């Protein structure tokens, strides 16, 4: 019974991270909530973690597609080689 509902901090952190990506299962979420009610350190971690997710969302960061990066890499390699002949 206790094994089923009580988790340690590292497990709680994992559930917390998963829930930032909406990948925590309902049972995991429940265990996390139970853990948070009596663990101050994890509450703090959890609030920082959500703040980070919010910041990332707000920043609207994008990555360049891999093909574009590949083109740039080749371009640099070519030019760099030419300059050093």
């Amino acid at each position, binding site marked *: 019974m206790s094994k089923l509902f009580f988790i340690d901090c590292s497990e709680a952190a994992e559930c917390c991270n998963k829930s930032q990506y909406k990948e925590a299962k309902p049972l995991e979420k429940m265990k996390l909530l139970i853990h948070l009610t009596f663990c101050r350190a994890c509450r703090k971690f959890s609030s920082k973690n959500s703040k980070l997710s919010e910041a990332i969302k707000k920043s609207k960061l994008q990555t360049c597609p891999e093909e574009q990066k590949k083109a740039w*890499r080749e371009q640099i390699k070519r030019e760099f080689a030419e300059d050093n002949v």
Partner: protein
Amino acid sequence: MPANELDPNKWVDKYSDYLFNYTIVRVNDREVANDLISETFLAALKSAKYFKGDASERTWLISILKRKIIDYYRKINSRKGKAEVKINYSDDYNEGEWLEEQVPDQFDRTAEDEMENNELGLAILECLDSINEKHAAIFKRKTIDGADTEAICNEFNITPSNLWVIIHRARTALAACLEKNWF
């Protein structure tokens, strides 16, 4: 030995996302942004011999990119037939009459907000530089691209529990770095 040295073969991996996010809010067109970044890399290679090592590689690349963005706006401006109309509201003649129009609109902060959020994004990317390169790449795939856990595991040949450990470390480091440099 100078404090900073250039390593052009690493530019794309280290800075392309940073340069891209810097450019996209300023030109608002992916293709133009990509072209400007290409030009920046080329110009940087050409003037690499003048790099003194006082600034970081990133700062130096950004300074070149800034010039490219300004040049881009000059070019499209001159293409418009130089139809630049200047309206000077606040000459002595009608002082007072137009003041109301010049009051900044408190509810229209979208441009400033967008710039501020963009700077936040750049701060995030800068913070990611300080963590393990592979971990940063995995974190970006998961968090920015929103890729599936399974897909990333296959891509990097790791298990899901590896992935969550890496994500945990990255998030902890990132939160600490942002706390120091941003919030």
